[in-house]
């Protein structure tokens, strides 16, 4: 980590060095259009205006810093990012929990029943190549029109999106024991329940966490899309769609950074749980 700190900073600086002139250029263009039209601006040249447009194309760094306290440092306000991120995070986590219960159950049936596996597994595999998120907005509206409102529809939708990667990950994990190990269990005269508890389940745990990480991002996207497609009282998705409609780039950037932070926090949460649950994996990587 330490030896990659300086290279990472360098890459970040290079990225900013590309983004900064782009920001100035795009904003100056917008500003000169406004000046031509004779709009009242507190600045004279397009270049000067680039840093304090009311509705910039890309917010200038000073504007991002200026907006930060309002967007973040007042967490109890319904328009702050942490307040909404909490709702989205809650929907995501509950959705993931629901998805993992159903996904685990299905994966167990998949490994037990061969006809069931042959009929269902290809659909699960196909689900990985299909944009299942496309159903989310419709599901949100249909659930809403049937009186399912508040947090529940978001939980259901993120569970639905997270379900497929979890089911397929666990099914893969439950099938991962070495045939030799399964033979060994048989020589111990272990029942199929014992084989499951003592061999199949422990070997599937690393697969489970890899699946959880993928599913977490998917669930978060599901929750955000669900929030943005219905009328809701809170959530990052609501903020995104509102500010997107109002074309408010300054708020959009704050929400985008907040969503990115939420995604990183949630996925690293899975990483932390993984380290606690599977200490034997730590030495491998």
């Amino acid at each position, binding site marked *: 980590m330490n030896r990659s700190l300086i*290279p990472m900073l360098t890459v970040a600086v290079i990225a900013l060095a590309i983004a900064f002139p782009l920001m100035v250029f795009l904003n100056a263009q917008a500003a000169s259009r406004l000046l031509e039209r004779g709009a009242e601006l507190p600045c004279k040249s397009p270049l000067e205006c680039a840093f304090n447009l009311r509705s910039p194309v890309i917010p200038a760094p000073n504007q991002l810093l200026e907006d930060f306290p309002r967007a973040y440092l007042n967490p109890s306000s319904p328009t702050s990012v942490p307040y909404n991120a909490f709702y989205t995070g809650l929907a995501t986590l509950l959705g993931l929990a629901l998805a993992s219960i159903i996904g685990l159950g299905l994966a167990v049936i998949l490994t037990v029943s061969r006809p069931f596996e042959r009929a269902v597994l290809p*659909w699960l595999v196909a689900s990985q190549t299909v*944009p299942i998120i496309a159903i989310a907005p419709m599901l949100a509206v249909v659930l809403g029109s049937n009186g399912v409102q508040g947090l529940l529809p978001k939980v259901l939708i993120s569970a639905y999106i997270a379900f497929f990667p979890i089911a397929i990950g666990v099914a893969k994990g439950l099938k991962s024991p070495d045939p030799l190990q399964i033979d060994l269990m048989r020589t111990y005269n272990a029942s199929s329940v014992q084989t499951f508890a003592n061999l199949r389940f422990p070997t599937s745990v690393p697969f489970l966490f890899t699946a959880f990480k993928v599913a977490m991002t998917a669930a978060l996207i599901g929750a955000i899309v669900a929030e*943005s497609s219905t009328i809701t009282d809170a959530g990052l998705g609501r903020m995104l769609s509102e500010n997107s409609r109002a074309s408010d780039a300054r708020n959009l950037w704050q929400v*985008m950074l907040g969503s990115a932070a939420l995604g990183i926090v949630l996925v690293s949460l899975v990483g932390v749980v993984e380290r606690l649950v599977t200490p034997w994996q730590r030495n491998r990587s």
Partner: protein
Amino acid sequence: MATQSLVGLIALFGSLALLILTIVQNASNTDAWSGGAMALIYFGLALGIVAVGLTSSGVVKWLERPRKKDQSDWLMRSLVGLIPALLLGLVVLLGVEGLVRGFAVPLAQIPPPSAVLQKLLEARSVLLRDTSITLLETAVGFLIGGSLGVVMAILTQRYIFLERGLMPYSTLFSSVPIVALAPVMIKIMGVDWQSKAVVVAITVFFPMLVNTARGLAEVSPLQVDLMRSYAANPQRTFLDLRIPNALPYIFTGCKTAAVLGLISAIVAEFFGANGGGLGFRIVVEIGTVSLDTVWAAIVIASLLGITVYNVLALLERKFSGWHPSFRAED
């Protein structure tokens, strides 16, 4: 064996549904029921006959017979392997059709599959245009982001500094929800297809970078030594050893990235598009509660995903079919 028991199961369920519905229909002879329940009864009957016919005539057994395992046969074998899944899909579709019609569920809640199919045919010109826009966004974004990813991977292979600086970001980026990026990009680039292509390019970049870099790095030291003993210069080693070794990894990256790209194109269209695109169509038609069109767009999006994935898988087989991973599978 598995298929046969499944077919038997389907026959059983088909006749059971038939029985229940006949009873229910006689019990409550209302208007809402009549058409739908009859439809389900006929479907159940037909399905039962087909299932029993397939099992008893030995068609299933013949299809599942042991075959000579050679390369040319893989397509046929994988198709035969899909039979149970396709049967299940058929049963589910017919079940939904019968239930939706039977209970007279309003079109604004769940449209029956037949209505969706009809809409697919009716609105095909509009949907085709939407598909071409989404495909354009995905393809352009994929080509830009993917080739940048491969080039950067080659550079990280050459310069360790770049690898240390770039790779940690890929883990960070994989946990960022792309939805949040879409409105920002639309604000910067406008509502036309270009903004969505950029979103796709950003999502595609990191999976391609990571997979290619892994493929380039994971060459066995013995092979590198062999190249050295041939007095091969670094360029030669790169072209004849590292690139071919990375090919399967690049294809894996392509498959993952293409699906991710399609997803992000559709999601980005939710937030703004200039009159076309599958995601745009879905959001607009939800607004007017014409859910049959929404489902038609979803069906097309799914077919698009499956097609893109399988075309890449076919290319993979053609260009890196020599790789041990294929031999192990056959």
